């Protein structure tokens, strides 16, 4: 049975590790500035944890085989432990775990402790059961007022977010069901939710943030490649959670300006 255990444990370890190393199913190609560091930190973590994984499972399999009771009178080492060894591996583990965490912390700080820089593209994302709406503030750079009383998804995009058309700042606000962004410019995102918690998740950007009713959460990211990327809601929001889907189109600056101008024109 010792041998059987060794074989089973080692095979499980082998197959698990193989698919990690081969990256058969992996993080999608990263297309935002954060992706490089996040992927680097991910790789570091998974290599270190992978080594521990293989070592621990390997040791377990080996030990149960090597020290099986084979009927011989090999003496058992009567030992209650080894304090020095305990201290050594405790310290090493603490250094490994906490060190790993501290290494990733500056990226977290830069993403989250600091607001978006000047010149970033402001976009407001509003989540509701079960769609995403995107609002651009237009030439005045200000988002107009929204009123819960005015919310009516059946009456178009502006009405869905309850845009108050009496507010002068609302006149140039553009609300769409698809998100367009210019490449290589930081996006100053404001996340809102109308009914329950949703989460704005774009795997390619390595971006995720919950949209919470009662809060307007500011985040930023910078897309780096032109393309189309899917948005998947990442917080259970009701029966339509699985189909609360959206698209982000990252285009050149000129195309973005043209698109925005076209949307503004449609409003007239």
């Amino acid at each position: 049975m010792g041998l059987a255990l060794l074989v089973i444990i080692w095979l499980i370890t082998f197959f698990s590790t193989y698919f990690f190393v081969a990256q058969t199913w992996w993080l999608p190609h990263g297309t935002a500035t954060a992706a490089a560091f996040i992927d680097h930190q991910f790789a570091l973590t998974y290599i270190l944890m992978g080594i521990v994984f293989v070592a621990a499972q390997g040791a377990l399999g080996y030990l149960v085989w090597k020290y099986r009771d084979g009927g011989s009178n090999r003496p058992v080492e009567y030992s209650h432990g080894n304090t020095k060894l305990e201290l050594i591996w405790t310290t090493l583990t603490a250094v490994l775990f906490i060190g790993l965490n501290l290494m990733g912390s500056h990226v977290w700080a830069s993403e989250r402790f600091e607001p978006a820089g000047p010149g970033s593209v402001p976009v407001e994302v509003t989540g509701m059961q079960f769609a995403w709406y995107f609002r651009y503030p237009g030439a005045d750079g200000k988002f107009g007022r929204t009123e819960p009383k005015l919310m009516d998804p059946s009456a178009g995009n502006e009405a869905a977010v309850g845009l108050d058309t009496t507010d002068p700042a609302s006149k140039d606000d553009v609300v769409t069901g698809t998100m367009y962004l210019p490449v290589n410019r930081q996006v100053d995102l404001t996340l809102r939710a109308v009914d329950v918690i949703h989460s704005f998740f774009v795997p390619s950007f390595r971006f995720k943030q919950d949209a919470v009713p009662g809060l307007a959460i500011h985040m930023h990211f910078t897309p780096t490649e032109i393309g189309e990327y899917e948005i998947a809601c990442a917080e259970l929001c009701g029966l339509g959670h699985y189909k609360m889907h959206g698209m982000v189109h990252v285009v050149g600056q000129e195309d973005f300006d043209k698109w925005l101008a076209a949307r503004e024109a449609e409003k007239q």
Partner: protein
Amino acid sequence: MATFSSTIRVPQADKGGGGTHPPVRGGGGDGGRGDGYPDYGQRLRRLRVGLAIGLTSVTMIFVSLTSAYIVRRGLPTFDDHTGTYTRDWIPVQLPLALLLINTALLAFSSLTAEFARRQITRQAALAPVQSIPGVSLGRESGFPWLALTVVLGLGFLSGQWLAWRELADRGFYLATSASSSFVYLLTAAHGLHLLGGVMVLLYAATVSLLHRPVERRRIVVDVTAWYWHFMFVLWLGIFALLWFVR
């Protein structure tokens, strides 16, 4: 179905080998009864330990409600109209005089509960003396501290009810504002626990009327009195929170 050993061990009066003896933890006789009951001193200590542990969990309930209160009080809410965060905490106009009277009632009830506890402790201590032939300490009943505690406790609860009516008259209902929700919730949670204490006190009073052994009565009254004191201190904490952090 599972099989369990159903041998019945007849309790032996002596401490010979065939009797049913629960583990005795070093020292302490078994109160003169060799039939397997832990002695009542042990029993009392065990119940006090149990009470202390149980009160830890009650404390956690109120700690969580208190921290929710404090956080909510300081929490800004996002106002759609202005697009900014504003504080929307409305201090509740508490009926202070009424609440002070209730607090006094509860304080007195804690006092009377303590007198009841000490009274029965004395009675239990003197119980062995009673069994000496020819010795009489007179009738057992002293001042009805226990009954008075029940009356004062019920007085407190009625006073709380009146305080709720007063709050309603001032326009503060359960759902009026976050602050009023907490006031009702905290006082209700405390009142419910106190009501439980009242019911146990009534049980203790009944047990005394039914002439159960005084050691057993002492255990019930002792543990309940400590619970009662905790409820009083808890009320002071809640009152202080609602008044000074309103």
